[in-house]
Each structure stands twice: as structure tokens, then as C-alpha cells.
């Protein structure tokens, strides 16, 4: 892929060149509209906007990651696959997908940055060893991830942190966080950052955010974690098709009991759905085929900060994280000793008071008359 300036073709033209029918395009627009929680009446407007939108230049940076996010993206079905992705935007730099290698690849990044100064988007997957960490933990072309990130975002229009590692630190940041891993928003303070969390995130959510940017020319509305509200506005629990079982108190107690077979709530098997905000329950995975809870497994809460440290995957949400019964016993013993000591002193006080007690005499009483 040669470095280039944003092509002159509009998105509509580009899509038609790639054989997408008008009908298919409108279908995509309708899906995108509903995905972004916009009223259906906006679909034609979105179609019109997308039709004439210019493809933005995108630089994709991969740091401490497993490539799962990219794998997820390339399996995107709804906006008709990687074709669409690759034409939707001008992907000017991406380790895994680009043909160029070595210095040529880095050159492509620098050229794209130069040519689209102030307008290009940076997508990051993976966490970054922070400025205080050993820079050697993760490098690309001899540069630390931190250097690359800061250099690349300097003239970006916005940054999209894809995946929980980029958004919240993810697994690299899990205790004891040996690489000093940090999230994008920990490091990038002067640019808009959108977090598209999930391990991996739902592909349609990634494309949805890009579509929103293309249509409206700005980033979508975000929640307190910087995630697009359209996709992260509701918890798994609230949209879960097993919710009625929770409300009726019907729970699977193990993975092979009657409750599990009958599709009852997985709360007691450790489902983190109540505290997890994501669109899995509505958009599902693999082109709407299924999603973890539908396949009988509790939600891991992968789109939330600290999900790896938030208690065992098979421990119910209400189970404390660190307390052990032994701690309680020890505390009780300490209490008994402390209380016993105090009580012994108090008892001595009673005895002393009784021992030095002066009997009341008639004469003393008479003084009061």
C-alpha cells in the first residue's frame, strides 16, 4: 500500500466501484443508523452524508496487544466486511494488514501524518508501557510504544482506543502490571479519545464509531469512561434475554444442571453482566449468530476497566475480592484479646471500687437531713 493523500473519490463512488449495490448501501446505512441509536428517519440523511463523505486517513497503531481486536475487525460482517472497512477509510498504516514492511512502512505513517496533518484519525490497540517504564518492553522500529504514540497523536484529529487494553490497560495492566502498562487516555490528554472497549470489541461498534465520525464530522456522545453511549449505554444485564429468570430468582447453579439446560440466569456462575456495559446482548457476535451468555457462559465483563482483576470469572459479582475467613478469625482473636484486656482493667476497677468502698453510716445519712 503506497503512501498517498486522501483519495478524491467519495465513499459512495468507492463503494460502487467495489460492487456494492445501491440497495446494499442503503441497508448498511439503515443498520448503522439503528446501531447508533438514531431515529430511522435519519437513515436517508446518513446515506446522503456517507455518499458524499471523503474517506479519512487512518493510522492504526498496535502496541501491547494480541491482535484479537484486528481479528475481530476483519471478521466484521454487517458493513460488508473488510472490503468495506478498507474503502470506508484510507488505512494508511497497520502492521498486520499493510503490505509494506520495515522502513517503508514507517515512512508510510510519517507521510500520512504529514499529508493529513490535523485531520487524520489514530486507532490504537494494545496498552502502552508508560513513560516511567522500561521503554524496551515494547518497541516498533526501534522506538518505544510511548514515543510512537505521542509522536503520532500530536497532529491527529482524534484517537480511537480499540479494545480494552488500549481503552483501560486491559490484561497487560492486570496485577502486578510488570510492564507499567497504561491506557491511551492515561497518556493522551490533549486530543479527543474514544474508547471502544471489549476483549475484543464488537466489530460493528468499531465501524459504527467510524461511520458516526464520517456522517457527523465529530465523535459520538460518550459515557464517563469515554465510550460511545450508543453502544455502551446499557448493561448486559439490562438487555439480557435471560433477565426474566434473574427477576424470578431462577438460577443455574452449575454448568450442567437443569437450570443451565433450561437457560436460566448465570448470576450464580459468576456472570458479570450486571456491571458490564456493552452491546453484546443486542448486536451479538459472528453476524448476529450468538453471544457468550446465549452459548451458556457467564459474561466476563471484558469491556470494563480492571476486568481481569475484578474477581474470579466464576465468582458471583457479590463475592468479596480479597477477604479470607482466616483474616476474620484473626481479627476476632485480636478483638477478644483487646476486649479481654480492657475488660480485665474494668473488672479490676469494679473490684477496687468495691474494695475501697466506704460503708454508709447512720451519721453520714443524718447529715443530709
Amino acid at each position, binding site marked *: 500500500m503506497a503512501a498517498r493523500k486522501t483519495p478524491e473519490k467519495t465513499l459512495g463512488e468507492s463503494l460502487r466501484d467495489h460492487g456494492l449495490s445501491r440497495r446494499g448501501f442503503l441497508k448498511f446505512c439503515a443498520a448503522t443508523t439503528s446501531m447508533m441509536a438514531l431515529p430511522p428517519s435519519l437513515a436517508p440523511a446518513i446515506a446522503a452524508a456517507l455518499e458524499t463523505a471523503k474517506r479519512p486517513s487512518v493510522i492504526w497503531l498496535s502496541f501491547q496487544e494480541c491482535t484479537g481486536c484486528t481479528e475481530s475487525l476483519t471478521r466484521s460482517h454487517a458493513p460488508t466486511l473488510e472490503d468495506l472497512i478498507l474503502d470506508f477509510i484510507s488505512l494508511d498504516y497497520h502492521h498486520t494488514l499493510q503490505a509494506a514492511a520495515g522502513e517503508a512502512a514507517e515512512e508510510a505513517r510519517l507521510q500520512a501524518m504529514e499529508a493529513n496533518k490535523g485531520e487524520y484519525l489514530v486507532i490504537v490497540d494494545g496498552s502502552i508501557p508508560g513513560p516511567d517504564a522500561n521503554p524496551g518492553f515494547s518497541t516498533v522500529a526501534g522506538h518505544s510504544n510511548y514515543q510512537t504514540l505521542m509522536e503520532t497523536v500530536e497532529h491527529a484529529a482524534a484517537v480511537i482506543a480499540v479494545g480494552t487494553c488500549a481503552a483501560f490497560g486491559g490484561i497487560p495492566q492486570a496485577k502486578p502490571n510488570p510492564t507499567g502498562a497504561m491506557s491511551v487516555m492515561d497518556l493522551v490528554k490533549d486530543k479527543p479519545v474514544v474508547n471502544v472497549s471489549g476483549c475484543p470489541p464488537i466489530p460493528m461498534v468499531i465501524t459504527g464509531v467510524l461511520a458516526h465520525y464520517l456522517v457527523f464530522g465529530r465523535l459520538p456522545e460518550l459515557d464517563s469512561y469515554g465510550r460511545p453511549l450508543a453502544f455502551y449505554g446499557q448493561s448486559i444485564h439490562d438487555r439480557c434475554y435471560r433477565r426474566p429468570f434473574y*427477576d424470578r430468582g431462577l438460577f443455574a447453579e452449575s454448568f450442567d444442571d437443569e437450570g443451565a439446560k433450561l437457560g436460566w440466569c448465570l448470576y450464580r456462575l459468576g456472570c458479570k453482566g450486571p*456491571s458490564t456495559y456493552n452491546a453484546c446482548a443486542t448486536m451479538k457476535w459472528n453476524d448476529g449468530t450468538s453471544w457468550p451468555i446465549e452459548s451458556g457462559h457467564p459474561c466476563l465483563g471484558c469491556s470494563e476497566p*480492571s476486568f481481569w482483576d475484578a474477581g474470579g470469572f466464576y465468582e458471583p459479582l457479590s463475592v468479596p475480592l480479597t*477477604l479470607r475467613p482466616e483474616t476474620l478469625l484473626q481479627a*476476632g482473636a485480636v*478483638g477478644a484479646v483487646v476486649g479481654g484486656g480492657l475488660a480485665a482493667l474494668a473488672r479490676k476497677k469494679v473490684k477496687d471500687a468495691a474494695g475501697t468502698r466506704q460503708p454508709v453510716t447512720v451519721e453520714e445519712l443524718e447529715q443530709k437531713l
Partner: protein
Amino acid sequence: MSGSMEFLLWTKGPMFDIAMVIFAIGLLARLAEIFLLGRARNYAEPRAGEWPAGLRTMLTRTVADRGTFERAPFNVVVGWIWHLGFLAALLLFVPHIELAKGLFGISWPALPNPVVDFLTAITLLSLVATLVHRLNHPVKRRISTIEDYLVWTVVFMVVLTGYLAYHRMVNPYPLALGMHILSAEILLILLPFTKLTHILTAFIARWYNGAAFGRKGVQS
């Protein structure tokens, strides 16, 4: 990063440990404070044993005698309702049972969530009623201390935050759940040092009461 999930994890992790440790130390200290004081030897010839009467009073004092019920129906009825509602929500709600199971490995059957939800709502209303009663009844107003209002607030907050979290009326949910857990932790910390100790010492007090009357031949 200080988000609601961090807050939840803090309440489930270190803060829970701190609260439970203070609770355990405080409660055991309080029990030691009581029991080690002892009782003077009683030389008077008893009419009956202390133990049967003491044990009976531990249970029977839960139910008011008819005259007391007629003179203080509000106290008796509302007191019962909110205590039962609180205990049901505490002990028979699935997440709470899972907590016990996770911590001590013991569990028991739960009530269906809508039932717990209903009882919680009733408990909240009853608690408000007890506060109104405390503020208006001349005796209760006269004998109430800051501690009474503090304890009321903490107990109310525990139930209220639980209700809000269950109904997801506070967003994001980790914040709601964290507030509930933190309220419960405050209650645990205060318990050994306030009148909340009555959850345990009331049974000790009842035993002493029943024993003292029992040895004189009266079932108190």
C-alpha cells in the same frame, strides 16, 4: 483513573477487608467487655434454674405481650415489619447468599428477587415511619441521641442503596453497587460501637433477664 469500577473494586476489596476486620475486632472486644465483668454470686435459694428460663426469654421477648401491643402498636408492628424485611433482604437475597458462600462456603435457599424487592420497599417505608415516629413521639424524641439518628441514617442508606442498585436507578451500575457495599461496610464498622450491637447483645440481655426472673420462679 478514578472511575466507578475502581470504586466498586475498592469496596469489594480493601474496604471490605477493613470493615470486616474492624467489625470482628470491635464485636469480640465488646463481647469480652461484657462477659468478663461477670456477675456476683447469688446466695439466695432459687425457685428454678436460670438456663431454661433464660433461653426461653431469649426467644419469647421477640413477641410483645398483649398489653404492650395495645399500648404501643406502632412500635411493635412497624418494628417487626422492618426488622423482618431487613433480615429477609439481608439473608435471603441471592447475591447476599453468594457472598456468604464465597466467603464461608455455606449457602441456603433464597427468596425470589421480586419478593425481596417488595420486602425491601416495605422496609424502606417502615424505616421512614420509624424516623417520623422518633421525631414526633414525646418519649422517643426525649430519649433519642445523635447516635440514634446516625444509626438510622446508616441503616436506611444500606437498604436504600441496595434498592437503587437492584433497580439500577443510579448509573453506572458499579457506582450504585459500590455505594451499597460501602454503606454496608459503614454499618459493619459502626455496629460494635453503637446500639447496633443489640443484634447480638439483646440475646445476652434477654438471657440475663430471663435467668434473673426465672430463678425467682417467673418466666419473663
